[in-house]
């Protein structure tokens, strides 16, 4: 491998650092071979950047109401126009990224936090453990995802936490199933036997040995799940079940200007476009990673 520097490269630490950097660039190069994945990654980075540095990127106050300038088209004063209360669409979109990522991260973490261990236990122990967990997962899957989210929000009330739960619970079964499948194929490998031979306990083998080797499908799922969480949050907000106004949320922005669609199409166009681009970004990255991790499929 050209990525490995020669043994002569100074002290141990510099060797390890160089090794790490080399591996990272090698990994990035593989992803970058897939142009679409690179586009997806770019979109996501822009999104994260907006969310992180929102206050420095905006031109107005996201809550500033100016009825005199309502429903304007894009101009120098308002880059992407204004909404029905005269608030700056560009500013609210940038702050909307914060809302979107805040909800998406929470929901994805919640889904993964429960889904991954459930999949690990099911796959590793099999038999009745598998049976019990998978039937619970099946019963969650029996509900249409969006409907379950609506029902959960309705029963838990509004707020960030109930959004986490409503969106996160939906994705638990998909993590559990994916991890379970990966564990089933990994646990028959000889390195697991070798670990057992070394005298390691089951939990240690599960988390330290098997889980890292199941990371590929998990990463793909994480990326796709982000897209799903953003979309679900937008839909919930659109239905009035997400954040209350005047929170800058993409779904809510779309909803608020929908009555004025004929009067000022721009006001709905930009939030809609943002949602689409963000979801597209995560999907492209997810698909790209899948192609990289499964080279046989990639060549087809």
């Amino acid at each position, binding site marked *: 491998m050209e990525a490995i520097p020669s043994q002569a490269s100074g002290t141990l630490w510099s060797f390890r650092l160089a090794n790490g950097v080399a591996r990272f660039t090698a990994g990035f190069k593989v992803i970058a071979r897939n142009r679409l994945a690179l586009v997806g990654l770019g979109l996501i980075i822009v999104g994260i950047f907006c969310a992180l540095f929102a206050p420095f990127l905006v031109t107005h106050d996201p809550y500033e109401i100016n009825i005199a300038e309502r429903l304007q088209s894009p101009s120098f004063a308002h880059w992407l126009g204004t909404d029905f209360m005269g608030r700056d669409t560009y500013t609210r979109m940038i702050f909307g990224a914060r809302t979107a990522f805040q909800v998406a991260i929470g929901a994805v973490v919640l889904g993964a936090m429960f889904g991954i261990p459930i999949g690990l236990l099911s796959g590793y122990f099999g038999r009745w453990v598998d049976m019990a967990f998978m039937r619970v997962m099946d019963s969650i899957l029996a509900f249409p995802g969006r409907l379950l989210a609506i029902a959960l929000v309705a029963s838990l009330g509004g707020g960030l936490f109930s959004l986490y739960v409503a969106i996160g619970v939906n994705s638990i079964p998909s993590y559990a199933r994916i991890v379970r499948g990966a564990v089933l194929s990994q646990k028959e490998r000889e390195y697991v036997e070798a670990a057992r*031979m070394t*005298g390691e306990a089951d939990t240690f083998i599960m988390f330290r040995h098997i889980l890292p080797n199941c990371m590929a499908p998990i990463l793909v799922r994480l990326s796709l799940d982000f897209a799903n969480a953003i979309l679900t949050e937008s839909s919930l907000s659109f239905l009035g079940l997400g954040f209350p106004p005047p929170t800058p949320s993409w779904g809510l922005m779309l909803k608020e200007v929908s009555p004025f669609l004929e009067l000022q199409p721009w006001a709905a166009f930009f939030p809609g476009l943002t949602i689409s681009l963000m979801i597209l970004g995560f999907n492209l990255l997810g698909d790209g990673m899948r192609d990289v991790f499964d080279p046989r499929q990639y060549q087809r």
Partner: protein
Amino acid sequence: MNTGQPLLEVRNLTVEFQLKQGILRAVNNVSFSLAEGETLGIVGETGSGKSVTAFSILRLIPSPPGRIAGGEILFDGKNLLNKSEREMQKIRGSKISMIFQEPMTSLNPSYTIGQQISECYRIHLGDSRKVSRERAEQVLSSVRVPSPKTLIDRYPYELSGGMRQRVMIAMALACQPRVLIADEPTTALDVTIQAQILELLKELQEKFKMALIFISHNLGVVASLCNRIGVMYAGSLVEVSGKKSLFTKPLHPYTMGLLEAIPRPEHRDRPLTAIPGSICNLLDPPSGCKFHPRCFKAKELCKTEPPTLEKHSGENLVACYFPGE
């Protein structure tokens, strides 16, 4: 050789697998003992129960479907079959260790060599990251890998088969076990690498003064390493003899057949002798001695009564009614 109490003693070990088609007895009434620092070779065909015996000693038989149906495994006078899973975890890797057949897949692909070796120290000796890393470096240099300092940060995919097998040996030796079980450690390697690995094992065994159980289907390999050799057929130990007498005066007809079947340069004008028939179906083994359908000496008695492993001459044991020429 067997002075005092043996280090490891297997008594009447029987292992069964519950399959859909019925019960398969993979290991049948196997007994042998191993003294401190001794090397015992176990040879036999594929499916004769060599590996299952090895895995049973560490209690690593997948259960279900496997089950140790009977017998005792005494290590230092204590029966391993009575130990709890937790006690076994303490023994595995620290007192009894094992090297596997497939070095290509026996290392975890997502950790560096150093991380995998030092794990052993962290678990059994409770060492810190730093200390365990130093120890890993030491043990790596003892298995003669070039520049262990850089190898320690490599991932398994960067190593060749021979190197990986050395790493596996280093892992198995990490905590200086008293018994090392080598389950066909050279099968997947080139002949030249094979010779190096065998040489290394011999040297390390003397250095660390451990007992070695060497499992192989290659009589030549076993001969170069072991002082005592056990021959397995269809789950039973049919002969246990000293190296010399096994090759010059084999006792069991199966051993004779095996020796006949080795190609020899001086017999190149003759067709290779083979044992007629094939290994029996373990789900439905023949009655009496399991080898009788293929045996040239088989008599009525062999068809009804299974012979037991008994002392023949000196320290040589055989399970046959008509041993020797």
